[in-house]
C-alpha cells in the first residue's frame, strides 16, 4: 500500500483549507417532481404495502416505493441501490428517518414493477436485499445503535437483535393489518443514542453488575473528580487503597446505590461494567412520538431482564412477537399500543400478554416514581 495524498499538506494544515461549509444543499438532490411541486402537495395514498402516491395541486402524481435495509450497510450495497435508482428513477433516492430507502417514479405501473424487482433480490445467504413495505398500520424498520459492532458501552448487540426481531415480525413489515403503526426501536445501553424512550416497543440493552474498579490504573487514566461527579446517585467516592504495599488513589463504589447506567465507565475506562452474566435486555412498551389523538408518551418497562442469547435472542423475539400479537388482536382501530394498554389497564395488559409483574417494574427513581403509583380506587381485578 502506498500512501495516496488527497492534496492535504500536513506541513501546512491551513493551506487551501476549507472549513465550515456545512452539508450540500438538498435542492440539488430532489427528484424533479418534488422540486416542481415543493410545498404544493395535496394528499397521499398508500396503494399497497410499501407503495405511496402523492398528489400535487398541479395534478402531478409521484409514486414512492419504500424498502427496508440494515442501517449497517456496505458501499457494495449502496452502489447496488444506486444502480437501481439510475435504472428506474433518474438517479435520485432518499433515506427515511427509520433507515428505509425510497425510490420515486412517475407512474403506478413503474412503481409496481420496481416493487416486484426489489422483492426478488436476495443476498447469497438467502435474506432479501430490498424488502418492500414499512408503511401504514404495520411495523416499520427498527432504528438502532451500534452495539457490539462498534461501541464501547453496549450491554447487547444492536444489528443482531434487530435482524432477529425483524425476521420474527417480518409479516407485519410487508402488511398493514395492525390497529395502528407500531414503532420498534433498539438501544444497546441506557445511554440510548437510539433514543428508544418513546417507542411502541423498545428493546434496550442493560447492565446489572456494578462497575469493576481497576485500582492500579484508575488514577493514571481517569480524573477522579469526574468519575465521582459522573454518578447520578452519588454512589462513587474518592478513596486511597494499598495493594502489595503500593498506595493508589482510586474510587470506591457503594454497590447498592448503583443504577447500572454506565455513566462512570463513559467518564473513566478503569470502571468497566460489561459482563456476560450481568448484561441483557429490558423491554419497554407503549411510548409514542406523534400527537395524534393522544399525547406523546414515554415507553414503560414491562420485562425487566432477558438474558443475551446470541445469535438470535429467541426469548426476546418471542416476547416481542407475543406482545405484538396480543395487541393486534385486542386493540381498536387507530389505537396505538400504549393507548390500548392504558385503556384496558396495565393490570390487564400483563394478564393478556402473560407477562410477570415483578418488583423491578415499580418505579423508584426520584420524583417521577411517585406519579406512577396507583392513587385511586379505580382498578381491575
Amino acid at each position, binding site marked *: 500500500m502506498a500512501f*495516496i495524498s488527497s492534496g492535504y499538506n500536513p506541513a501546512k494544515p491551513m493551506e487551501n483549507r476549507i472549513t465550515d461549509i456545512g452539508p450540500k444543499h438538498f435542492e440539488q438532490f430532489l427528484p424533479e417532481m418534488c422540486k416542481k411541486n415543493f410545498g404544493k402537495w395535496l394528499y397521499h395514498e398508500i396503494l*399497497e404495502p410499501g407503495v405511496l402516491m402523492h398528489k400535487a395541486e398541479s395534478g402531478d402524481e409521484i409514486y414512492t416505493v419504500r424498502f427496508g435495509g440494515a442501517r449497517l450497510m456496505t458501499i457494495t450495497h449502496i452502489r447496488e441501490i444506486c444502480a437501481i435508482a439510475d435504472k428506474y428513477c433518474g438517479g435520485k433516492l432518499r433515506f427515511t*428517518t427509520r433507515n428505509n430507502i425510497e425510490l420515486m417514479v412517475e407512474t403506478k405501473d413503474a412503481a409496481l414493477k420496481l416493487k416486484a424487482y426489489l422483492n426478488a433480490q436476495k443476498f447469497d445467504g438467502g435474506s*432479501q436485499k430490498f424488502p418492500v413495505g414499512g408503511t401504514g398500520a404495520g411495523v416499520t424498520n427498527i432504528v438502532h445503535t451500534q452495539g457490539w459492532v462498534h461501541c464501547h458501552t*453496549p450491554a447487547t448487540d444492536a444489528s443482531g437483535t434487530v*435482524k432477529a426481531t425483524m425476521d420474527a415480525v417480518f409479516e407485519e413489515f410487508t402488511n398493514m393489518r395492525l390497529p395502528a403503526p407500531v414503532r420498534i426501536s433498539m438501544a444497546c445501553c441506557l445511554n440510548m443514542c437510539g433514543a428508544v424512550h418513546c417507542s411502541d416497543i423498545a428493546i434496550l440493552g442493560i447492565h446489572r453488575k456494578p462497575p469493576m474498579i481497576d485500582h492500579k490504573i484508575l488514577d493514571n487514566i481517569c480524573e477522579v473528580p469526574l468519575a465521582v461527579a459522573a454518578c447520578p446517585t452519588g454512589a462513587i467516592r474518592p478513596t486511597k487503597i494499598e495493594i502489595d504495599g503500593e498506595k493508589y488513589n482510586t474510587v470506591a463504589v457503594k454497590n447498592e446505590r448503583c443504577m447500572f*447506567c454506565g455513566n462512570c465507565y463513559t467518564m473513566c475506562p478503569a470502571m468497566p461494567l460489561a459482563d456476560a452474566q450481568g448484561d441483557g435486555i429490558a423491554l419497554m412498551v407503549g411510548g409514542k412520538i406523534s400527537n395524534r389523538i393522544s399525547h406523546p408518551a414515554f415507553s414503560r418497562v414491562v420485562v425487566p431482564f432477558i438474558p443475551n442469547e446470541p445469535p438470535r435472542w429467541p426469548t426476546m423475539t418471542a416476547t416481542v412477537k407475543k406482545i405484538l400479537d396480543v395487541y393486534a388482536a385486542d386493540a381498536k382501530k387507530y389505537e396505538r399500543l400504549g393507548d390500548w394498554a392504558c385503556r384496558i389497564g396495565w393490570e390487564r395488559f400483563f394478564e393478556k400478554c402473560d407477562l410477570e409483574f415483578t418488583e423491578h417494574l415499580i418505579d423508584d427513581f426520584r420524583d417521577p416514581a411517585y406519579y406512577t403509583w396507583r392513587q385511586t380506587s379505580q382498578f381491575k381485578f
Partner: protein
Amino acid sequence: MAKHKTPLLDQLESGPWPSFVSDIKQECDSRAKNVNGIDYQVAADCPDDLLGVLELSYKDGETHWKHGGIVGVFGYGGGVIGRYCDQPEMFPSVAHFHTVRVNQPSGKYYSTEFLGSLCDLWELRGSGLTNMHGATGDIVFIGTTTPQLEEIFYELTHNLETDLGGSGSNLRTPATCLGMSRCEYACYDTQGLCHDMTNEYQDELHRPAFPYKFKFKFDGCPNGCVASIARSDFSVMGTWRDSLRIDQKAVAAYVAGEIAPNAGAHSGRDWGKFDIQAEVIDLCPSQCLSYEGGKLLIDAKECVRCMHCINTMPQACRIGEDTGAMIFCGAKSPILDGAQMGSLLMPFVVVDEGNEYREIKDVVEGIWDFWMEEGKNRERLGETMKRMGFQAIIKAAGVPFDVRQVQEPRTNPYIFWKAEDVTGGWDNDIADYRKRHKL
C-alpha cells in the same frame, strides 16, 4: 475464503430481513478480489476482522471496543469518534477503527452521483462500512485510521463540497423530516430551515463550547416523523393558527366508501365500513368536530391540531393556511436524570425565510447564552431547566409567559417570590415591627 470462522454470525444470514452479515461478507469479497485495482489506504481485510471481533463478542457476550482517544481533524472538536479494538493482536486490521460523521443533506435526499462519490472515497480511505444513517441523522463512516482523517476531510470539503457532522459537547448535526418536498402536512419548509440553521451555526457544530450535546430537530407537523419532541433540545414543529380546511365533497366520498380511510394505511385487514362518527368525531381529543346533515363541521377555536382527522381523511381535511411552528425545548433520553419530553416554549412562531429566520435564531441564542452560563458539565438543557425552573429558560429565550406552556398550573403554593414582586420590597424594619407587636 473467510479469514475468520463465524458460525454464530452465519446464523444471521437466513430469514427474510436483509442480513448485515451477508452484506459485510460481500464487502470482504469485493475487497479481496479488488477488480478495480484500488490501492486501499486502510487494511483491505478490515471487514473480515470486523466480523471476527463481532463473532468474538457473540461468543463472549461482551463488547471488544474501547473508549475513543482524542482524534479528529485540525481546528474541529467533533465529527470524528476515535475507536480502538481491545484485541488488536487477534484483529490487527481493526485495531484502530475510527468513525467519521458526515453531515447529511436535509431530508436525506441524494443523487446517485453524490452517493457514488462518497462510496468511492470510503472505499479508498476506509472500511467500506457505513451507517445510512446514524441515530442523529449523519452519514456514518465506520472504520478508518488516524492518518486518513485529514485526507478524508480534505476530499470531503474540496471534492464533495460537504462537511463533517457533530459529536461531543457540540451542536449535533441537525435533522429534519422531508417536509414540503413530498408531504402535504408540512406547515413550514423544514428542509430550508434545517439547512439554514446548520450553516448559521457551523462554529457551534464543529467546536465544542457547550456544557453537553445540543440537538436541533425539525418536524413539519404534529405527526412528528423525526421525533423532535422526544429527541431534541430544540424542537421546531409545524402547526397552524386558523382552521383546518374541509372539502365536503371528499368527506361525502369517504362516508360513501369511495375513498379508503387513513390513506389506505389499514387496508390489510377488514375493519368494516368506514364510520365517520366512530373513527373521526368520537376520537377527536378536543371534541371539536361534528357530523351533521352530511357535513363535517369544526369548531376551529377548540381544535388542538392533533392531526387525526387529517390523517384519517387526507383528501377531505387539510392543514390550515396561517401556518408556522411551535418550539419545544429540553427533550432527551434517560441518561442521567430520567427521560424528558420537550416542553412547549413558544406556541407559535412565524417561520420566515425573508428575515433569515431571525426570530427563531434569537430564541436559540438566548437559550445558549443562559445554558452556557448556568449549565453544569455534561448537563443537558432539559436538566438545567429542571434544576433552575422553566421560568428561567422562558426568560432567557426572551419569550412571553403563556398558559399554553403548562399542562396545568402548579399544585403547590411554594412560589419563589422575588423582592420586586412585593410592594415595599423585603427590607422590613424589625424595630418598627416590634412597635406593633410586643415579644
